[in-house]
């Protein structure tokens, strides 16, 4: 089974018209063409390369990682003599990906990376997560390398980045017993050792995903006497240098193949990444945005897996003399699951493209910043709902351990918690809500759809124009209603309790409108997205009307 070739949506987004600009930015206008044997000379050639790579990864995800998922979930990692030993299936997954050159894929070619843009890397993460979300966390942590590549010194890059491309595993050591969502409270100490010419770490980190990794990025307090985020710096610690023990690995509800560890650092030698004091306020924020996009990708992988498990079961299971997918009540569940998957996926790849374009455009960077919390929030909540619905479609069988849906249900639960809870994503979205940045983005989508519908050549999918126009009309109404909702909620000011209580609802409505528009734009190119588009059109108008009524009457 190939998780790329069996999912047409992936090649649809790989060939999105905006990918041409993404490739040009990532390839620095093809400056390496002819100088490096792997560098493409055009956007078309680059997309062909991505297609080859996606096919390879799709095969590995379908034929290696997915079949290993159940045993990995069952066996999990073990702690032996202070070291974590992966489950055999996890080790096999890693070995195959490393041997295939699919590790450290976003890094520059000079470090033996594949120089893949974010829009392609998240697609790989989606496929891996569809196979096994727990393993996707281990593979996805190579994103740490991007932080070193972006902010580290040349010496640091030359030392560590080639190792990551050769398979060195990574972890992002942020959380401590008293510093979870509130990372400003991090206490792990970093002191400079003049004699040895290096920094040294002392303290405890907790809930560290892939905690016994080869390379760790550690957030630590370098400025003695400080007590906020400005006293924190960022360090790279090499496991081979010693000074760190794994105290325990957690017994988790889900993603059981991914070792979550508590670490004790004792005079552990390390090197600083970038400048002092910028650890949290610059580097972790950058890393965190990438990680949130990564969790979005994991969530959509899980959404897809849940859809397919439910669709397959509903097609095979017969009751009252018919497959249960012929009953409207079941069909409705399946359609909602598919719509959520389509909507969140369209938002994921839209955001990823903006993240790529942000490297050379300040406006694109601003859009990436506002869309990222929407991806994390919506995709992870949808993953949970799809996992719930997947069990519902299975009925009593879904409650038994024999079916994959129970694993998906457990794996989904962390997605709306780690790398920033759903509630923190709402906080992150507030800036864009208050500034009107989301509305500005919605206006640009509205203009693009209206322009395409006004010109006959704007629609290549064959979708009925009347239906597309109707969707546009309703989305316009929903956007206008969102404006009223915002005004009503903010009538006592944006720092009022009334407004704060409305922030989640405002963010949800915005998410639905944006996903509705994105699927409408997708429907111009491919009519198969129209059904899911209509779901978000209906959701957005229904939801906003309900919230306004509640606010005005209660």
């Amino acid at each position, binding site marked *: 089974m190939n998780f790329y070739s069996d999912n047409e949506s992936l090649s649809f987004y790989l060939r999105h018209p905006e990918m041409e600009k993404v490739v040009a930015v990532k390839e620095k206008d093809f400056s390496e063409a002819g100088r490096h*044997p*792997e560098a493409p000379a055009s956007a078309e050639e680059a997309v*062909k*390369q991505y297609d*080859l*790579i996606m096919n*390879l990864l799709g*095969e*590995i995800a379908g034929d290696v990682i997915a079949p290993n998922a159940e045993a990995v979930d069952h066996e999990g990692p073990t702690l032996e003599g202070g070291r974590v030993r992966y489950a055999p299936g996890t080790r096999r997954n890693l070995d*195959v990906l490393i*041997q*295939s*050159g*699919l590790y450290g*894929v976003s890094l520059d070619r000079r470090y*033996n990376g*594949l120089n893949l843009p974010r829009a392609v890397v998240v697609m790989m993460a989606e496929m891996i997560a569809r196979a096994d979300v727990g393993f996707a966390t281990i593979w996805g942590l190579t994103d740490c390398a991007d932080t070193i590549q972006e902010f580290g010194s040349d010496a640091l890059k030359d030392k560590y980045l080639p190792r990551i491309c050769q398979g060195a595993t990574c972890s992002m050591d942020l959380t401590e017993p008293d510093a979870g969502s509130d990372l400003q409270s991090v206490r792990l100490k970093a002191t400079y050792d003049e004699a040895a010419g290096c920094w040294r770490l002392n303290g405890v980190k907790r809930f560290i995903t892939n905690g016994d990794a080869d390379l760790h990025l550690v957030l630590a307090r370098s400025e003695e006497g400080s007590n906020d985020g400005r006293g924190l710096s960022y360090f790279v610690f090499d496991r081979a240098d010693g000074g760190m023990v794994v105290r325990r690995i957690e017994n988790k509800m889900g993603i059981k193949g991914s070792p979550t560890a508590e670490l004790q650092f004792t005079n552990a030698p390390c090197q600083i990444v970038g400048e002092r004091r910028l650890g949290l306020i610059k580097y972790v924020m950058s890393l965190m945005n990438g990680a949130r996009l990564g969790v979005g990708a994991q969530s959509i992988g899980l959404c897809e897996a849940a859809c397919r498990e439910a669709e397959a079961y509903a097609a095979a299971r017969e009751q009252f003399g018919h497959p249960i997918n012929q009953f409207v009540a079941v069909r409705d569940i399946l359609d909602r699951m598919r719509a959520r998957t389509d909507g969140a996926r369209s938002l994921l790849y839209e955001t990823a493209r903006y993240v790529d374009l942000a490297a050379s455009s300040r406006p694109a960077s601003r859009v990436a910043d506002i869309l990222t919390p929407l991806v994390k929030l919506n995709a992870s909540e949808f993953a949970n709902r799809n996992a719930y619905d997947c069990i519902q479609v299975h009925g009593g069988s879904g409650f038994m351990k024999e079916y994959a849906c129970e694993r998906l249900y457990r794996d989904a639960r962390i997605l709306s918690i780690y790398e920033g809870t759903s509630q923190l994503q709402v906080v992150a979205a507030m800036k864009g809500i208050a500034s009107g940045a989301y509305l500005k983005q919605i206006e640009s989508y509205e203009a693009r759809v209206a322009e395409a519908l006004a010109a006959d050549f704007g629609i290549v999918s064959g979708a009925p124009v009347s239906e597309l126009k109707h969707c546009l009309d309703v989305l316009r109404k929903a956007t206008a209603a969102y404006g009223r909702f915002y005004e009503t909620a903010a009538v006592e000011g944006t720092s009022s309790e009334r407004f704060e209580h409305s922030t989640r609802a405002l963010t949800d409505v915005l998410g639905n409108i944006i996903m509705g528009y994105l699927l409408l734009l997708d429907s111009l190119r491919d009519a198969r997205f129209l059904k899911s588009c209509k779901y978000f059109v209906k959701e957005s108008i229904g939801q906003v009307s309900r919230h306004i009524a509640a606010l005005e009457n209660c």
Partner: protein
Amino acid sequence: MSFRIVVLAKQVPDTHNVGADAMNADGTVNRSALPVVFNPEDLKALEMALQVKDRMPGATVTVITMGPPRAGEIIKDALNRGADDGFVLSDARFAGADTLATSYALSQAIRQMGRVDLIFGGRQAIDGDTAQVGPQVAEKLDMPQITYAEELLDVDAGGISVRRRLERGIECVKAKLPVLVTVTSAAADCRYPNAHRMLRRAKDEVRMVNADGIGADMDRLGLKGSPTKVKQIVNVVLSHKESVVIEPTEAALGELSATLIKAHIL
């Protein structure tokens, strides 16, 4: 001189993905309707060859196939997985070859390469199931052969040891080089392609070699060189009346044993 390894491979119809139009009305295979794949046991043979290459620094692996130009796909695949070189024997004069003509063409291609230390091939192809081509190539090259290999145990410049899987057990054998080895489906899966190799070779054309390029006697090629004549292909399905239900009782099982012994089956 470097250590040279040859892998014999074949592109075959993917019998795991057979659609409704896979067979013609006359009972022959409709090849145009079938997806094609690297013959599974040949992939295992490639892996064993690559394992030898891993252990023998400087060793080179060359993959040879015979077929239409499209068979170049498996050569490219093999190169992406770690082979150093490969080519397709492709010529209308090779068409219609049975195992005799095929093994002749392959052996001629290998002769052109000069000294070769090891030849690997799958035990058989999933479209023909003859298991004859490997052994016939060895005979034509006057080379010893090891069949049914499932694991590489040891290799050096002097010889190779492998484990063979036989019907009634296993055999560990050692042979001097050069030798031809056929590999069974129990052997290790082939490693996946490497993304960097794929990108570096994406635009490369696969080398095609015609009948003139292997110094062959044209009468021994293709249909002309193939004594096999297919008279008829029959789809055999065992019908219910040919099967007997045995009750799981001591008496019935005893009777079954006696019948099988009498028929010299046991």
